[in-house]
């Protein structure tokens, strides 16, 4: 089959306010994850590994750290002379400035960027999820089904289904109905917010949608329902594998802990599907003779003299003698001083947990978000 050119547009403008202090200074896609990454590394690495080298990143909220993380895209091999990764913030024209109104509007405002790359297909991604996925397989599926839109879906437990946008499908996976967070779900196939569109078709809908003053200019609310109404061919593509929406502090902590579970299916050590991130130039970490490290992930530049159990450490963290950290996620530059104890916590960047402090207890079911000034329980 002739390969059609596909570019990706990654929606990275959201604040993710349910992540509270974690997104005070950065957009949600820039939130650190898994000891070494930021959330956006997952879709970006997926693009690179899938052979998609043209990626537009739509930013809006506090893009500074995100920009500095993405840089020229070299970490993901996306620093291409033409195309490559391109950050697309809002801009002004003769009529003044216009901020992005919704997901579809953000794409609409960058039609000229897409036109210049003249793709056959456009992949819409969000920067909010942890997963590894080969988008080129989804594209093959899209072409086989001769679909106008293909929406990636994942099976979720029935009792959680009503939190998601759900796809009700025929046996051939064509979409019968799309329901946003229904009270009585008819299906447990949740939309992952990943769409493949034929660019020509999408372009028309974006232009029409922009003219519709009643529209909220959103893919899920406006574009997809309109295409359904017009009898366009919508197919669901079922994704198998680890997928997690890290929407809250609790689910953020859980999905980090997932990496340490025996049953973990998100293999970060797979050399054929590496997750890339910005590289710091730090030496290896040091484990002292007094330390104990069990079932934990440790990144570069750390110095460990205490004991860690079921814990993820980011870079340049110091853990003093007799300090104890259990079931926790410690972000870069934090210091856990001698004798301090930390259970079930997410400790933010550069926080110093003083000697003698005790956060949480061994049998806690609460998760603590520890910042410089306060501790939030969730």
């Amino acid at each position, binding site marked *: 089959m002739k390969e059609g050119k596909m570019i990706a547009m990654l929606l990275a403008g959201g604040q993710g306010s349910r992540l509270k202090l974690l997104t005070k200074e950065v957009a949600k896609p820039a939130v650190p994850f*898994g*000891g*070494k990454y930021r959330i956006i590394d997952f879709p970006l690495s997926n693009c690179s590994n899938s052979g998609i080298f043209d990626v537009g990143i739509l930013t809006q909220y506090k893009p500074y750290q995100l920009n500095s993380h993405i840089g020229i895209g*070299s*970490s993901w091999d996306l620093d291409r002379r033409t195309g490559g990764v391109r950050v697309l913030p809002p801009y002004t024209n003769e009529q003044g400035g216009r901020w992005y109104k919704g997901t579809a509007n953000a794409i609409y405002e960058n039609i000229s960027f897409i036109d210049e790359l003249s793709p056959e297909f456009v992949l819409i991604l969000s920067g909010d999820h942890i997963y590894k996925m080969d988008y080129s397989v989804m594209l093959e599926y899209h072409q086989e089904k001769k679909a106008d839109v293909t929406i990636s879906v994942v099976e979720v437990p029935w009792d959680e289904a009503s939190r998601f946008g759900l796809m009700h499908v025929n046996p051939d996976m064509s979409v019968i109905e799309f329901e946003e967070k229904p009270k009585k779900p008819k299906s447990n196939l949740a939309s992952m917010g990943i769409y493949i569109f034929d660019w020509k078709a999408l372009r028309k809908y974006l232009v029409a949608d922009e003219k519709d003053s009643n529209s909220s200019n959103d893919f899920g609310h406006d574009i997809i329902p309109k295409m359904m109404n017009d009898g366009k061919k919508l197919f669901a593509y079922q994704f198998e594998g680890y997928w997690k929406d890290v929407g809250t502090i609790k689910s953020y902590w859980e999905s980090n802990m997932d990496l340490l579970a025996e049953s973990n299916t998100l293999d*970060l*050590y797979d050399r054929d599907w*590496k*997750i*890339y*991130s910005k*590289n710091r*130039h*730090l*030496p*290896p*970490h*040091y*484990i*002292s*003779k007094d*330390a*104990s*490290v*069990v*079932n*934990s*992930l*440790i*990144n*570069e530049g750390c*110095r460990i003299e205490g004991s*860690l159990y079921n814990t*993820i*450490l980011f870079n340049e963290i110091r853990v003093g003698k007799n300090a104890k950290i259990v079931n926790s996620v410690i972000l870069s530059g934090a210091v856990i001083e001698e004798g301090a104890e930390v259970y079930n916590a997410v400790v933010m960047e550069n926080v110093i947990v003083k000697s003698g402090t005790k956060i949480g207890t061994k049998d806690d079911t609460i998760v603590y978000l520890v910042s410089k000034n306060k501790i939030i329980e969730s």
Partner: protein
Amino acid sequence: MKNCLGIVNLSEIDNNFGVLCQSRPTSMLPFAGRYRVIDFILSNMVNSGITGIGIFTGNKVRSVMDHLGSGSSWDLDRKINGLFLFTPTYDYTATYKRVGDLDLFYQNNSFIKYAKQEHLFLSKTYMLANIDLNEAYEEFVESGADICMIYKPVEDINQAYIGCDMIHLDQKGHFESVGTNLGKNKKFNLSLEMYFIKKEIYFDILFDAIEKGSANFLKQALFNNLHKYSVSTYQFDGHVSCINNIKNYADANFAILDSEVSNDLFFKHGQIFTKVKDEPSTYYKSHAKVKNSFIANGCQIDGYVENSIIFRGVKIEKGAIVKNSIIMQKADIQKNAHLNHVILDKRAKIGAGVTLIGEPNNPYMAGKKASIDKEVL
């Protein structure tokens, strides 16, 4: 330091390293879990603001090219200045064997000639340090000397520096002479084989040596002519490891287990850059027990590790014991294997239950991709 061009000479003696230097020069020896020896001098130069660097690769070109690439890891992939590799030119019609590196410097004359910089910084790679070259350079420029030699006062109790150059100063602290350390004195000034030199003096020395046939090596030519020029010195006081044989190489690695040494080497005057590998964090599994060790990213450890340096992507399975060892990239140490005083090169595989025991002064060494399934005691 934009008026200073860096020149690194990789043609060092590499027959002291057994299997480790079979297909790599000394400068490409893996070090401290994720680096190569050359990373230190390159990072020193870049951190001090030298952006034009020529590297004379020696014969083991492939290994050098693999590591340096376009120089992007050191931010040296530039249009203006940047990294230049000088590979040997093979002349099939040559009827004589070339000795030394002087000829190669002469052949690549035009690189230095047409560079805009007026000063040269010449260095080898095997004296490993984190040094502020900018400070040394400023002293050199202010002194008005033709040549500046960098040294460190050392007390060589273990005779680690036998055969290295030593610098003699007069009572006023001025340069007097340079010679070879035979071990007679414990305290002396160790030359780091790093020199600043004015470009015109460099050419004087090079051309003179070639015309007179008085030297085969650049260093030889330089030393022969020192009396003609004004020579200044710069004293360095930080940590130095001299990588000129296996024993010193192993000691240099183990030295970083001392936090003072590792702080000095990795942070004192800027970061040390190396080729990026995109490894995830290291995963300590439920049976892991690690003591006093330096562990790089991408490892999966379920065994016992003590007093060791573990490079990127190493696997140590349950029941395995690794002590006093240097385990290079992507080595695979299977269940219940037992290693003490061992140096494993990249991608070595040690089968389940295998025991390898070396001696403190004579480590057991296994080459690249070695696969050892039987016990060696």
